[in-house]
Structure formats: structure tokens, C-alpha cells
């Protein structure tokens, strides 16, 4: 076997908190072989980004490497002088960061930012450097590099900027590329294209890569070898196929089984890992995972297991891995207790007809010079119905208008036209005109509990306030307290949370409080906008189970909004897919997931990365990016990217709404039958989009 490109030996990293140094990463050994894409997976706080950046000797100001060596070829990176490491950075080691928008300098042109690297590391002329940058952009499939080079970052879309970053990172033929969650901020369909590009380019350039991610789906699709981190320590590392098919560490097994999937049975519960991640620095001489491990024994709590090399290129840190590998014990049994599902009744809790919402750019000072008004049509003629005791799932990428729709339903923004009926009664589109009963029956759970809970109120105050304000009958202080405690127990929190403030709660606990608050006045419908997207997967599973339990117990209905198809599909009876403010397809969950008809739904489903390396599928590549809602294409909104575009009819005429006998509905010029027969012939080939068009759109953003 050849020498590794880079390897960390016994690496420990501390963070300064106040005056103390806390150990965040403990004795990590990590080697990346040539041509290998090495995945580093973990939840937030596991230290994955810290390790990745420390390995290329880039540390936050309040961090230090307390121990260990980092060998890059023959050299120990820790021993190099600043000047020497600068010669390596950007040249032999490069980074593709997470947040591309902020990772490019907003006030410099792309050309300047790209040529800077080449000119720093080789003695080329300005013209040569420019040509080199243009070639690099061509290699990431940018058809008109000169145009892109002349632009500023804000003139490019997220996907385009990430291509620029990738082009820049690979332009110097590096030996190692660090990919720090490179697609987390991107939409699913863009992510699919970028991952494809990354995989091909890394192999082509014969580089090695360290891929940092929390997303097991993309890891399965991209990596050759995976290291799983928990609380700053390596739990397990293995070649990707073995890790996903025969995980040996209880934490890995837990992580893999708590993911919702579209194949999941609707009635089953997700596996959850109980407890919360160990706090920084609080690592004793026990196994760091012992507190949350269902298999923990006395030994696990008194002595730390070593990272054992089990031969076969695998390592695992568990006292009981042999039993797990042999199949004699299983940490996370599929839970026997199923969710009691109540059959949806055929009455409507919510009926929405032709809601539209447009945001105009307002000007503070009316100007004599510029009177042109522009705006965004965020929601366009949306009609939907939610059955009593059912869940309506709404999926869409950024800019699809799903949040604007939710806010219109809640009257947080006032819809321009349309009507809403709640339990058969028409309700106002204006918040001020909604009566108490409407407010009581229509509650919401926001995406980010950090922002939606008042930090100065205790949990009890927060929930009882909503309860007392919205209850039909006046509620005494004592009765309110009892009901709040009941609610806290319903969301799995003990009574002593009553007096806590949000600052002392974890992200998952905060979201439970937000859910308890939503359910406090016994609403008929709860609208949850991305209820789990700010949470780690192990916490997400807990919240998803909770939402299912509460629906049964409280008899409520949901509208669940998410960009995550798995989450929506796990919770919902009915699914609607939004694109540029319109619902392009809706129908029963199984119909939409298993028989997607609209070309956009088809592409969206194919783009979702499956957390299983055995299913390495090539997603349907959509050309270009989601157009800005500011500049909505005429005709069918999807025509600029549609791989099954018919021709001019799509550009001129709005597609008709087609409904089949199952109540499955699409907006497309093709019929259900035509789409089905085309799909049976295999995935579409993407039309080559004209660069001018794409740039035109970028410009109009």
C-alpha cells in the first residue's frame, strides 16, 4: 500500500473557554491515502471541522493543537514556518468551504480572486493566469468562463459560486482537497450536480480529499472510506461499503437507523439515540458514548475502550464490537411500539383556494427619477386541502415559496387574493381580523427555536402565556400550570423544565418546548415550517416521532414544510411539491413518492442522496439553477430547466392542471400517461442550456 497523502497522529485540540483550555478533540489518528475520498462524519460539536482544518494547520484564534503530529508527505506541518505553510496552502492543499456566499470576497471580481492563487504559486503572467482560471472554470462545466470571471460574487447564484470555489481549489492540481460541508447550503438538485462534479474532478486530478459532513446520504454517495466522530473522538472507521452494511459501533448503528427514508413504513417509529451529546471538556475515563449507549456495561463506564485495529482496514472504539459484529447483540432494536395511526376522516380541516402573494420592492422616498416597480411573486394560485387528522407535506427548494405560503396561511403576511377556510368556516387573510378561536386552532412551530422562544421567559411562562391567552374559557393559574406540565410530559420533558430558561436547553429540548407551546391551546391545525432542519439527525428522529405521537394523542392535523423529502415523506399523508410559487404536483404520499409524474418531482426525488453506497445512482441533472422569482420564466415556470421540455408551448402557455382518478394532480403540458411512458424508457437527457440565458438570469438576480 502506498504512503498516505496526509496523516494525523495522536492529534489533540483544545479550545479556550474563559481562562481554561478545554479539550475538544482527543488523540485522533487519521490517514488519507492517495486517490481516496475520506469522509469525516459527525453531529454538531463532534469536532469534525476542527479536525479537518487543524490537519491543514488552520485553527481558530481560540484553539490550539496541544499534541500530535501532522505528516504531509515527509514533513510535519506543525513544524513548518509560516512562510513554508503558505507555500503549501492554495497549492498542494486546498479548501472548498461550506458557506460559499461569504467565502468569496464581496468586493473583488472573480477573475482577481482566481488569478491570485495561480500568481502566488507560480511565476506566470497576468494573461496566463487569466487563461488558467478560464480553463479551470471550463472544467467545472461553466460554458462561458469570461463572463463569470468578470463578475462579482453577488452576481452569481449559490451553485455557480460553489463551482468557482471548486474550480479554484482544483486549479493548482493539489494533492489534498478539504471539502468542508461543500453542499450543505445548496438545494438538493444543485447538490446532486455539484457532488457529481466533485467526484469526477477529484479522480481526474488524482487528488485525495477529506470530506467533512453531517449528512450520511452524501457521504455514502461520495466517499471511499469513512471515519465516524463523536464528541471529539473517533468511534469507528471503515471502507464506505462495510461501514454502511455492517457498522460495528453502537453510535454508527444508531446514526444510520435514525434517518427517515422515503421507503420507511409510515406506521413505524424512527430509532432514536436518547440523551444529549457529552459537553466539551467533560470527558472522563469512560467511553464518551456510554451515557447514550443502550449496550453500555459497567466496563464502558469505568474504562475507555481503545481504538482497535480489527484488520480488514477497519477500526472501532467499543468494548463490545465483537459481539455486535457476530450479531449476538444489537444496540437499536426496531421499536416494537408502533404509532397508533388514526385514519384520516374525510372532513376538511383546511381548505385553501387560489392564494397568491406578491412582495413589491417598496421605496422609502418616492423618487421622481425611478418609478419602475419590481417585485417577487412568491405564491401563485395555490389551492390545497388538508383532511382532519392528517398531515399535509409541502416540499420545495429555496425560492419555491413554501415559507411564504405558510406565512400567508398564518396571516403573518397578508395574501393578496384567495380564500382560506378553517374547519369549514372562512377566515380572514389579515391577522388583526382573525378571532380568538381562529388563533387557537391554527398554531405554528418555527424552524429555529433559538429565535422563537423569548430568552427571558421560563419554559412555563412561555407555554402558559399562549395557553391562557387563547383558551376558550378563562383558565386559573393553577389549572394552567397543571396543563403546562401535562404538555411538557407529552413532549417528553420532565416537570422541572417548567422553571428553566431557553439558554439552559439544548436545541432539541427547545424545539420540544416550541412544539408544546403550539399544542397548548389544543389547536385543530399546526403548521410546522422546517421543524427539524436546525437539528442533528439523532435529535431530528426524536422530534419526528414526537410529532407523530402528538398527532394521534391530540387529534390535530399538520402542514409540514421542508426542503427534505425524507422528512416530509415520513410524516405526511399527502404531499405537495412547490416550484417558483406554484404547486406543480400533489397527491397521496405513496403516489407522489413512488410514482412521481411531474418532471421536477422526478428530478427532485432522484437528486436526494441515499444513505446507502450500494445504491449509487446518477441523479437527473437539471440544467442551470432555480430562476430568481423576480424573473419568473413565462409559460411553465420549470421550462428553463425541464429535461422533458416539449418546445415552444412550454415557453408560451401556462400548463393545465391535470387530475387523475386518485386525486393526484400535476401542472404539465404532458398527460399522466405520456409522462409514465417516457419514464419507463429511462431518465431524460438534459438539454444543453444556453450560457447566455443562464448568465442573463444570474444578472437579473
Amino acid at each position, binding site marked *: 500500500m502506498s504512503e498516505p497523502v496526509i496523516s494525523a497522529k495522536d492529534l489533540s485540540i483544545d479550545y479556550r473557554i474563559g481562562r481554561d483550555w478545554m479539550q475538544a478533540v482527543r488523540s485522533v489518528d487519521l490517514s488519507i491515502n492517495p486517490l481516496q475520498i475520506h469522509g469525516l462524519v459527525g453531529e454538531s460539536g463532534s469536532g469534525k471541522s476542527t479536525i479537518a482544518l487543524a490537519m491543514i494547520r488552520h485553527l481558530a484564534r481560540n484553539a490550539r493543537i496541544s499534541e500530535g503530529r501532522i505528516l504531509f508527505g515527509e514533513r510535519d506541518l506543525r513544524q513548518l514556518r509560516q512562510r513554508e505553510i503558505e507555500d503549501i496552502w*492554495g497549492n498542494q492543499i486546498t479548501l472548498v468551504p461550506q458557506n460559499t456566499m461569504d*467565502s468569496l470576497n*464581496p*468586493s473583488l471580481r472573480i477573475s482577481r480572486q482566481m488569478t491570485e*492563487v495561480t500568481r502566488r504559486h507560480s511565476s506566470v503572467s497576468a494573461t496566463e493566469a487569466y487563461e488558467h482560471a478560464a480553463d479551470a472554470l471550463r472544467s467545472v462545466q461553466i460554458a462561458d468562463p469570461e463572463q463569470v470571471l468578470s463578475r*462579482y460574487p453577488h452576481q452569481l447564484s449559490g451553485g455557480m459560486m460553489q463551482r468557482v470555489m471548486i474550480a479554484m481549489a482544483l486549479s493548482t492540481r493539489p494533492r489534498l482537497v478539504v471539502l468542508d460541508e461543500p453542499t450543505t447550503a445548496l438545494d438538493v438538485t444543485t447538490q446532486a450536480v455539484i457532488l457529481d462534479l466533485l467526484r469526477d474532478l477529484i479522480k481526474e486530478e488524482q487528488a485525495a480529499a477529506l470530506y467533512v459532513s453531517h449528512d450520511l446520504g452524501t457521504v455514502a454517495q461520495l466517499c471511499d472510506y469513512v471515519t465516524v466522530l463523536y464528541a471529539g473522538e473517533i468511534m469507528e472507521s471503515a471502507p464506505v461499503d462495510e461501514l454502511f452494511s455492517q457498522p460495528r459501533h453502537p453510535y454508527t448503528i444508531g446514526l444510520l437507523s435514525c434517518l427517515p427514508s422515503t421507503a420507511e413504513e409510515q406506521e413505524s417509529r424512527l430509532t432514536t439515540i436518547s440523551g444529549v451529546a457529552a459537553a466539551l471538556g467533560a470527558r472522563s475515563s469512560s467511553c464518551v458514548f456510554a451515557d447514550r449507549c443502550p449496550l453500555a456495561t459497567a466496563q464502558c463506564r469505568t474504562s475507555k475502550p481503545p481504538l482497535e485495529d480489527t484488520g480488514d482496514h477497519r477500526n472501532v472504539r467499543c468494548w463490545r464490537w465483537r459481539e455486535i459484529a457476530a450479531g449476538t447483540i444489537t444496540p437499536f432494536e426496531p421499536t416494537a411500539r408502533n404509532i397508533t395511526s388514526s385514519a384520516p376522516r374525510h372532513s376538511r380541516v383546511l381548505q385553501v383556494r387560489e392564494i397568491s402573494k406578491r412582495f413589491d420592492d417598496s421605496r422609502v422616498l418616492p423618487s421622481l*427619477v425611478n418609478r419602475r416597480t419590481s417585485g417577487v411573486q412568491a405564491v401563485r394560485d395555490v389551492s390545497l386541502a388538508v383532511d382532519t387528522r392528517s398531515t399535509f407535506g409541502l416540499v420545495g427548494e429555496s425560492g419555491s415559496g413554501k415559507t411564504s405560503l405558510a406565512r400567508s396561511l398564518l396571516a403573518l403576511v397578508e395574501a393578496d387574493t384567495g380564500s382560506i377556510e378553517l374547519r369549514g368556516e372562512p377566515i380572514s387573510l389579515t391577522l388583526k381580523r382573525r378571532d380568538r378561536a381562529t388563533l387557537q386552532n391554527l398554531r405554528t412551530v418555527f424552524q429555529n427555536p433559538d429565535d422563537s422562544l423569548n430568552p427571558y421567559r421560563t419554559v412555563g411562562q412561555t407555554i402558559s402565556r399562549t395557553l391562557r391567552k387563547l383558551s376558550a374559557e378563562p383558565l386559573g393559574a393553577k389549572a394552567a400550570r397543571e396543563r403546562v406540565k401535562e404538555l411538557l410530559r407529552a413532549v417528553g420533558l420532565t416537570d422541572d423544565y417548567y422553571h428553566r430558561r431557553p439558554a439552559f436547553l439544548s436545541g432539541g429540548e427547545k424545539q420540544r418546548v416550541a412544539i408544546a407551546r403550539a399544542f397548548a391551546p389544543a389547536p385543530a391545525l399546526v403548521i410546522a415550517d422546517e421543524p427539524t432542519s436546525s437539528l442533528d439527525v439523532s435529535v431530528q428522529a426524536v422530534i419526528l416521532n414526537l410529532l407523530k405521537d402528538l398527532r394521534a394523542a391530540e387529534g390535530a392535523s399538520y402542514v409540514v414544510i421542508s426542503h427534505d423529502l425524507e422528512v416530509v415523506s415520513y410524516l405526511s399523508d399527502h404531499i405537495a411539491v412547490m416550484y417558483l410559487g406554484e404547486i406543480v404536483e400533489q397527491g397521496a404520499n405513496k403516489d407522489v413518492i413512488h410514482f412521481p409524474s411531474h418532471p421536477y418531482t422526478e428530478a427532485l426525488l432522484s437528486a436526494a442522496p441515499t444513505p446507502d453506497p450500494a445504491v449509487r445512482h446518477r441523479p437527473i441533472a437539471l440544467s442551470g439553477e432555480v430562476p430568481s422569482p423576480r424573473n419568473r420564466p413565462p409559460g411553465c415556470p420549470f421550462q428553463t430547466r425541464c429535461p422533458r421540455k416539449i418546445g415552444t408551448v412550454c415557453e408560451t402557455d401556462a400548463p393545465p392542471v391535470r387530475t387523475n382518478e386518485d386525486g393526484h394532480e400535476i401542472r404539465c403540458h404532458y398527460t399522466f400517461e405520456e409522462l409514465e411512458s417516457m419514464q419507463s424508457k429511462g431518465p431524460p437527457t438534459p438539454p444543453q442550456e444556453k450560457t447566455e440565458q443562464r448568465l442573463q438570469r444570474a444578472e437579473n438576480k
Partner: protein
Amino acid sequence: MTRYLIRRLFTLALTLLVTSFIIFALTNLLPGDVARLVLGRDASDTAIENFEQRFGLDRPPLVQYAQWLGGFITADWGRSYTAGSPAVRSLVLGRLGNSMRLAGTTLLIVIPLSLLLGVLASLREGSWTDSIISVASLSVVGLPEFVTGIVLINVFALQLGWFPASTYISNNMPFGEWMRLLTLPALTASLAITGYVTRMTRASMLEELKKPYVRTATLKGIPYRRVIFAHALRNALLPTIAVIALSIGWLMGGLVVIENVFNFPGIGSLLVTAVTQKNLPVLQAISVLIVFFYAFANLISDLLFALLNPRIRLS
């Protein structure tokens, strides 16, 4: 961008029009009969009448305003009430030249000094250097400029005798002499402004240094100095420019105090004289000029902001 510029110029004109009206209204609201105030209690009725006729004070206020405004636009700023009735315009513009020299020198000190100190403090965040710069800039911000002025005069003029304590400007003064005259007043004004600008530079540099693009630049292998000056500082300048523009506005007002401390013949000291003499035409002219400079400095800062920020420039 052109549209933006036109819009901004339009707002500037509007601001000046509104403030000119307010200034005119306020100065005419001063209690008492202007002519009597100027000529004294013992002046004869005929003298008062003559005075009022001569300066148009017998006409209705709105007509007076219209004439004054019309005159102002056509470079006839009226005549001073003082003996000999010199033209206000040449009187004020002569003094304005001196004040501009003082303000210019001040900015030449303030801008490089505060940028340097601000960047230094941000790079050494939390260190002794940072603390010293922060404490020093906060303390000079807190000191009124007549105090710093008097201290400077005491030390550098009276004790050491390096600079003159008071200002005499003669025609065709050599450059070196000018510098000697300007040093102490400019230093006084600088001390008051440098603190603000330094703190703003430090704060916005700290913010920029935390942004991911600085990491991108660092990991390109670019030398640290270049990362700081070519990448971070460029963006950190944006909010700093606004603060500098505000200080220029402040400077025009602050000159009133400083010029009096140093007996400097600029518009500040002229303004004080005009007030004591109830010399309304001079008072009005200077007030409009101060407003103009304030608004103009803001316009320039907005244009610079747009020039340095492609997001605004290209929209």
C-alpha cells in the same frame, strides 16, 4: 449608478432648500427689532428707518426670504450690517479658505492615523496594544476640544514655544509658516475625531476578519499582510467612510470652538462675531455653508461607499 447620482444630487438640493428656509426663519424669529439691536438703543427713528430700507427689512418676511434665496443662488449674498457694509460673500469666502485649510490638515492627520491604529488594535485584539489604543481613543473622545486646545497651547506654545499660541495670517505666507500656524488647531480637532474613527475601524476590521473569505484568502497561501490590506481592510473601510463623513460634518461645527480658542480667522470665529453683532446676513450665509458641507460630505461618503461596494454600484 448615474440614476443614483442624480437622485442623490436632487436630495442634496432639497436638503439645502429646506434648511435654508429653517435658518432664515429662525434668524428672523430672534426677539427684538433687528435694526435697533444693531444700531443700539439710542439710535434715531430715521436711522432705523434708513437701515431697514437699506437692508430690505421693511418688506414682508416671505419676500425677504425669496430675495435672500435668489441672491444666494446668484452669488449675491447681501451686505454685512457692520461698518462699511462689506459684501458678505467675499468676507465669508475669504474666511472659508482658511477654515478649509484647517479642516484639510485635520483630515490628513485623522485618516491615516486612525486607520493605522484601528487596524493595529483589531489585529492585536485583547492584547496590551489593543487596550492602550482603546483606552486612549475613548479618553480623547470624551475631552471637549477647548480643553485639549488649551492644554496643547499651554505645552507646545507657551512652555515649549514650538508653535504660535494665536494665529496671524498675512498675505503670501510661505507654506512652512502655514504649517506652523495650522499644527496646533488641526491637532486639537484631530484628537476629537481620531477616537471615533479608530474605534469604528477596529470594530469593522474585527467583523471582517471573522468572515470566511478571509480564511479563503489565507488558505490561498497569500501572505498575511496582503490578506489584511488587500482583502479585509477594503471591506472594513465601508462603514469607516461613513463615520469619517459624519466627522467632517462635526468638524465644520467644531471649528467654531477651536477657531476661537486659537483666535484663528476662519468661518467659526466669524460666526461667533456675527452672532454677537446680530449680523444676520453673515450668520445666515455661514449656517447655510455649514449645512452644505455636512450634506456634501455625506454625499461623497455615499458615493465612495457605492464605488467600493459592487453590490450598490452595479444595481
